[in-house]
């Protein structure tokens, strides 16, 4: 069922995928505390191993072009099981939004405004996010291209400015840790940055994609995101080396070390700017997806009026997610790969397999297909 009537172009979708991945490049503490100086290996391996996963997402989008993810579940599993899985996914989207929102609030509280209660920061962010969500998917994804390119720019500049501090010896010794750690890290890469792309399956009705364009979009987008992630990680490892596991935000510390002559210092403001930009839009997309999912569960088209209350719910939900930051890191490293894996890997693959077995989607009669083709795309970009 198509709730939001606006259309976006495939390039914009590609940039949305890219910046979704790039926002995970800033909070790499999950990875770096497990495989410290070898963290780039799981990124490479994870990227390669997830190619089939991306193909699964792409196939789901192409096979069910008019359904959101919840609609796909309904079609494939039937109404009852589909609804139960739908509720599970709604909870999943809300949890993701809450986690990212509290990340943003905590980051600001730790670095900039140490005495403000983090709920105020979160509410501030949510008010602007809800305003964007009310306007629909066009506004939420409008700046994706701009921010992706800005993030590339920031990463490039910071890497350039750190040339004198890069010490390639920090990469050694390679492959000396226990294999379970590499598997662990790869699992984390597969679920936390890449797996979150499953939420973009909710945007399927808004993007008209043929099989070839979809493949190009997904792979280019994931490619851009993974390159940023890889470059950031390698930069952090090269500069910080063994000390990386001490820091909760290695990217921030790396940028703090930039010191060009007498004047160019405090470049970490760029890190804060990039983080705020990317996390804001990630939270915006996630809140939008949650609102659409709730509207679809209740079979209503009025998602605008739900946006504000969903936003406030996400703020309060974030406060009850974990008791303190340490538990958060431990739980994310130990439990989340499996838990998110169910939502991001197991269920999509199962859905595709069952869809293929049941030969869904059924071929639509010619009339309906023609009606779908006569659509105004002139406001598409």
């Amino acid at each position, binding site marked *: 069922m198509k709730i939001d009537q606006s259309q976006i172009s495939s390039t914009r979708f590609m940039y949305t995928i890219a910046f979704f991945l790039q926002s995970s490049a800033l909070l790499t503490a999950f990875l770096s505390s497990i495989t410290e100086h070898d963290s780039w290996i799981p990124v490479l391996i994870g990227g390669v191993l997830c190619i089939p996963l991306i193909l699964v997402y792409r196939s789901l989008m192409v096979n069910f072009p008019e359904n959101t993810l919840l609609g796909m579940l309904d079609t494939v599993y039937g109404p009852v099981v589909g609804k139960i899985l739908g509720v599970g996914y709604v909870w999943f989207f809300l*949890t993701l939004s809450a986690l990212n929102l509290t990340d943003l609030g905590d980051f600001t509280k730790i670095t900039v405004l140490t005495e403000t209660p983090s709920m105020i920061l979160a509410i501030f962010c949510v008010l602007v996010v809800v305003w964007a969500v009310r306007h629909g998917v066009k506004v939420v994804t409008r700046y994706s291209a701009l921010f992706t390119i800005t993030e590339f720019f920031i990463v490039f500049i910071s890497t350039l400015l750190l040339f004198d501090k890069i010490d390639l010896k920090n990469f050694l010794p390679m492959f000396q840790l226990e294999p*379970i750690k590499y598997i*662990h890290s790869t699992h984390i890469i597969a679920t936390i940055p890449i797996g979150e792309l499953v939420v973009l399956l909710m945007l399927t009705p808004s993007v008209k994609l043929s099989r070839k364009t979809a493949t190009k979009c997904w792979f280019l987008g994931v490619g851009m995101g993974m390159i940023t992630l890889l470059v950031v990680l390698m930069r952090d490892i090269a500069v910080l080396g063994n000390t990386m596991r001490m820091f909760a935000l290695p990217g921030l510390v790396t940028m703090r070390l930039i010191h060009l002559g007498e004047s160019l210092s405090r470049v970490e403001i760029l890190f804060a700017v990039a983080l705020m930009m990317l996390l804001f839009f990630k939270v915006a997309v996630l809140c939008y997806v949650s609102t659409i999912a*709730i*509207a679809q*569960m*209740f*079979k*209503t088209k*009025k998602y605008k*009026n*739900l946006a*504000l*209350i*969903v936003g*406030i*719910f996400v703020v*309060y*939900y974030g*406060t*009850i*997610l*974990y*008791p303190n930051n340490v*538990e*958060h890191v431990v*739980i994310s*490293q*130990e*439990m989340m*790969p*499996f*838990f998110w894996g169910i939502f991001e890997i197991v269920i999509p693959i199962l859905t595709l397999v069952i869809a293929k077995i049941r030969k869904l989607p059924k071929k639509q009669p010619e009339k309906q297909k023609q009606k779908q083709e006569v659509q105004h795309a002139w406001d598409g970009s």
Partner: protein
Amino acid sequence: MGWILTGFALIAVIDLVPLILQRRGRAIAAFLTVFVIALTIAVLPALGVQIPPVLTFFDKLFKSIGLSY
């Protein structure tokens, strides 16, 4: 506590009243579900009742199954 209640009342006025005026039953149901849950989560800590953290609960669940690192 007062701020929380005022805030939620404001949200209800902004979003619920147009829905009632347009008589959209399903949207009202969706709104009220989320509203009630949000209100409980917001009000309970102010009254002193501790809500158990959600992820810790799932963590224990998964560890008991054995499905974690």
